[in-house]
């Protein structure tokens, strides 16, 4: 969507013709200098650290790498990470569709406030996101005693990890869908109703097919954040190996124990996930723009 809209460049000058720069183009040396500067900045801050992850992961050889990502604690961490994403992404997907339907297709008072509130989790520090769940579900928290009496554990257990993940990924799908569905108006939905379609039929047959790329886009971003969340999950997890460790937390523990090769091996899995996410995102953006 972004890279494709290039301003048309002047055609190559015919041999012997004197080149006249377009009035609104910079001289070639300025162009080259700016491109060089931008790439140098991106290299020091993005590309080198990314390369370092894979370099450090494989520095001790493929065998060490393979062992690091197949040890039981690593596998348990992968499983928990997948579980947290598998719960939080569908929940936030359903929420995103419901919120976008109410906000984009109907007029009601207080709508702008609602849209702002939906964005709220993005402006809350992940550490605070974890903290507020400790305040509600922790031993000292509102529901602490009730939970203990029923022998239920939320904080320092899997439910807490899932809740924290749901919180930090809360707005992703909704904020993709709301502007998209607003832009599409209600005429097609009204046409469907006039032709006899009922509630779910309108949603399934008209609305969702029209926003499927935006939906997918939101899900991809939501999933990446769900699998990669560190701060919020760190507060509520309790770091119990093999039990309440997600993959990012597993990376931290290994790193703090100076098992650098193993830490970077686990990190490389997450970096791969990030690269796949970016590739999918670029692909969806290109489909989207047609």
């Amino acid at each position, binding site marked *: 969507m*972004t*890279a494709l*809209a290039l301003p048309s460049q002047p055609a190559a000058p015919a041999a012997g013709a004197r080149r006249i720069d377009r*009035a*609104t183009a910079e001289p070639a040396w300025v162009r080259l200098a700016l491109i060089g*500067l*931008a790439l140098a900045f991106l290299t020091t*801050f*993005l590309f*080198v*650290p*990314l390369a*370092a992850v894979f370099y450090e992961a494989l520095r001790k050889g493929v065998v060490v790498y393979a062992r690091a990502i197949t040890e039981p604690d690593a596998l348990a961490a992968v499983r928990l990470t997948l579980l947290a994403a598998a719960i939080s992404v569908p929940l936030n997907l359903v*929420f995103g569709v*419901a919120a976008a339907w*109410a*906000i984009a*297709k*109907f007029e*009601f*008072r*207080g709508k702008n406030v609602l849209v702002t*509130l*939906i*964005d*709220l989790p993005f*402006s*809350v*520090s*992940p*550490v*605070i996101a974890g*903290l507020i769940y*400790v*305040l*509600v579900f922790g031993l*000292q928290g*509102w529901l602490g005693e009730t939970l203990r009496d029923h022998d239920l554990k939320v904080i320092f257990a899997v439910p807490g990890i899932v809740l924290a993940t749901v*919180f930090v990924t809360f707005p992703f799908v909704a904020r993709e869908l709301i502007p998209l569905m607003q832009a599409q108006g209600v005429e097609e939905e009204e046409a469907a*109703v006039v032709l006899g379609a009922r*509630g779910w039929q*309108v949603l399934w047959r008209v609305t969702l097919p029209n926003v499927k790329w935006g939906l997918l886009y939101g899900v991809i971003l939501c999933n*990446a954040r769900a*699998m*990669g*969340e*560190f*701060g919020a999950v*760190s507060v509520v997890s309790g770091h119990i190996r093999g039990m309440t460790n997600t993959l990012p937390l597993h*990376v*931290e523990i290994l790193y703090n124990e100076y098992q650098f090769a193993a830490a970077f091996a686990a*990190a490389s899995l*997450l*970096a791969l*996930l*990030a*690269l796949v*996410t970016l590739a999918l*995102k*670029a692909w969806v953006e290109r489909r989207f723009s047609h």
Partner: protein
Amino acid sequence: MPLLLRRHSVLPGFGLALGFTLLYLSLVVLIPLSAAFLKTASLTWGAFTAEVTAPRVLASYRLTFGASFLAASINAVAGLLVAWVLVRYRFPGKRLVDALVDLPFALPTAVAGIALAAVYSTNGWIGRLFVPLDVKIAFTPLGVLVALTFIGLPFVVRTVQPVLEDLEPELEEAAATLGAGRLQTFARVVFPTVLPALLTGFALAFARAIGEYGSVIFIAGNMPMVSEITPLLIITKLEQYDYAGATALAVVMLLVSFALLLLINLLQWWTRRRRAAA
């Protein structure tokens, strides 16, 4: 619900969709967030101010807000440059570079943290280059700046880029026919047009940076009074079971975040108005 007056529509499901939205929003976001404010209310005003103005806490504010502001400023300049280059010029590998700009969004912060620590430590690929200058980056406040610059980068690029793409070439051509040079055209025509978006990107990067935790703690060194950020201080207090202290700090951070959110909304409204008027 008298607040929610609505106009008639033949489309179904308004009550169900809005009801579910409000319920889910309350359960996941609003009620837990209110817990932080209610918990703080149990402190006396004196105890609260003592908590949030202790010397170690003040030092953490200075670092968190100072480094965030600097990082967002670096991002404003570099982000505008990157956006300009991506929109205006062709070069090999451009599509790849464009996609990788979002890396800080997609890369888990813990991974970013250990990678930056490895690269910017004294024996890392880049940190090594600064040893002769007697400059240490990792495990100093400078490391915090590096991490916050990393995570804030996409915000400026992605808010400025669409505005630059929408910029009509006629505007710059008109400036050229009126005798303006390229630099004048940029300063007087292009820059004012992208300014609202640039400020929005700056504010987004700043807001993200002050709450950042994962990418910072690995590279910061976390020395009290020197390289300890406020979110880390919250966790430290929490691990010492000082819930009231942790929550008091969280409330200060939340209030700052909400103020920034308001500011960002105003900036975005300004941006939209500018673009609609163009």
